[in-house]
């Protein structure tokens, strides 16, 4: 249970087509992440799957049956919203019980399931509080609780962590990943944060302007980005993309080298420049380098603490075997 198939799905708002014809299969039990810059259509795509928006043409199949014209509740999916969307006038218990109440389940079963969910999500101490009395992280757990009690065939997450502070976000990321390992239910997760995508996904779908740029596992996207857009979007800090004469040396329109694939050398290197900003994180040092003659500012990651500072000369050697080459259309050259 939990296979979702999109066949030639399109979506237009008025005369603007936000999703051109799109095909996608989300396999059972998979953790799929839709990632892309804001406005790329990833949330719209999720809402189409949920049934909160009607598709303009095409079909959506859930577990082999056509769900295109089914109302949200009949699709067997649960959704966690960015704003949590908890019912402010109900206690945590009633919030979690609400979908079961709507399903006309008997009270004993409701109580059993709500208690089980509260146990799993550490909500027992807050069960009789209202959402307004909870912290952001607790609210998000209630929203997840409300989703899991229904035992849906798939979970849909719409940027669920973007309202949380950085530390909490890392914690909740882990919790959601663990939840997936335990429940083994299909999860579709929308985010603009590529770190979330890389750390959580089995499969990442990179979107731009409603078009799928690439589908693959996190490391596939990292190692073999299909085009310049994916190369620049996946990985942090961003891949260095160099065009012009230097790229021509490699028979390419654009070459890409990740910051971690450039070695800092003593004295002159293949590329030379001056340090603009040095970010010392202890475990790593990020250098932003100017005046390389490559036309672009370079970002370089060095392991450990390297004691170069603003204005210092620096020599760099890119690792040729880790270099990515792209043609004039921006596509990868094998």
């Amino acid at each position, binding site marked *: 249970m939990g296979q979702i198939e999109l066949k030639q799905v399109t979506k237009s708002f008025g005369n603007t087509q936000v999703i051109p014809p799109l095909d996608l299969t989300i396999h059972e039990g998979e953790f799929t992440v839709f990632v892309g810059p804001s406005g790329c259509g990833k949330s719209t795509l999720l809402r189409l799957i*949920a049934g*909160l928006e009607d598709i303009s043409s095409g079909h959506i199949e859930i577990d082999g049956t056509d769900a295109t014209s089914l*109302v*949200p*509740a009949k699709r067997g*999916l*649960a*959704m966690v*919203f*960015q*704003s949590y*969307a*908890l*019912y*402010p*006038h109900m206690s945590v218990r009633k919030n979690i019980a*609400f*979908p079961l109440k*709507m*399903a006309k389940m008997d009270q004993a079963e409701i109580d059993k399931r709500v208690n089980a969910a509260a146990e799993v999500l550490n909500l027992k101490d807050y069960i009789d509080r209202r959402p307004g009395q909870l912290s952001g992280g607790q609210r998000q757990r209630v929203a997840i609780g*409300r989703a899991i009690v*229904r035992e849906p065939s798939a979970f849909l997450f719409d940027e669920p962590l973007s309202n949380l502070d950085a530390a909490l976000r890392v914690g909740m990321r882990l919790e959601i990943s663990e939840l997936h390992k335990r429940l083994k239910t299909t999860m579709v997760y929308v985010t603009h944060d590529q770190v979330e995508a890389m750390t959580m996904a089995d499969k990442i779908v990179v979107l731009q302007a409603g078009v799928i740029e690439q589908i693959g596992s996190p490391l596939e996207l990292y190692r073999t980005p299909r085009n310049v857009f994916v190369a620049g979007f996946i990985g942090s800090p961003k891949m260095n993309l160099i065009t012009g004469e230097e790229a021509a040396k490699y028979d390419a329109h654009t070459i890409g080298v990740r910051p971690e694939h450039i070695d800092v050398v003593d004295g002159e290197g293949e590329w030379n420049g001056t340090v603009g900003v040095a970010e010392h994180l202890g475990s790593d040092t990020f250098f932003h380098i100017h005046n390389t003659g490559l036309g672009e500012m370079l970002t370089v990651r060095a392991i450990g603490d390297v004691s170069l500072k603003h204005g210092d000369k620096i020599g760099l050697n890119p690792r040729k075997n880790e270099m990515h080459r792209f043609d004039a259309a921006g596509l990868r050259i094998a």
Partner: protein
Amino acid sequence: MARSVSTQRKIITTAAAWLIGLLIFFPIFWTILTSFKTEAQAISNPPVFFNFDWTLENYAVVQERSDYMRFLWNSVIIAGGSTVLGIIIAVPAAWSMAFVPSAKTKNILLWMLSTKMMPAVGALYPLSLLFVWLNLLDTRFGLIMVLMLSNMPIIVWMLYTYFREIPGEILEASRMDGATLREEIFYILTPMAIPGIASTLLLNFILAWNEAFWTLNLTAAKAAPLTAFIASYSSPEGLFFAKLSAASTMAIAPILILGWFSQKQLVRGLTFGAVK
């Protein structure tokens, strides 16, 4: 940064606020005061303020001559009925305008409001004929319908404004959770909009209670509410100011008391959405 206010300025604005408040309140105060005077004192020139013989006689006469409780009961039924019925019809209407607006929603809202700009007397003749044909003259049901319809634009507008404040994602969540449209409105939207609905109820109850044009023109005896009760004391053979005042005081007392106890709710409701 908070603006600094000098003491002098504070005194002036406070005095001005009190002055305006008292000016607005004065007619009501004068009515209540007059109701305790004799007819002669009521029209004496110069007017007497407190140095008169306080009497309850007017109240006794008014109660003796007309059945206050019957008028009161009619007012309660008509104001309450038209308000409750209006809310029941307006909640789904405001829901659709707030959450599934069409390109014409704004126009419809403005058109509804524009009907309030027509003088009521303009519709008196056709409406009276309609009442005659439908046998609705001097019935509480007829008045409930008329007041409900004439207040409908205000009810819809108020509810629409409150509903717009409710995040759409919460309603979408309830749809994902399996709520039907009816359950969505009943379990989620209405409880969340309770403060707004309460102040809408209250304001419309007051408007319907005070409505004098239709209640005077479309009733005679059976369905006459308190407005007719007051009017019956402004007789052509001479004004009995003290008795008129006593009748007025009795008529406005219930709504004044209701307003007094719910003023917090009323103010909150009326400014709801103005400040985030």
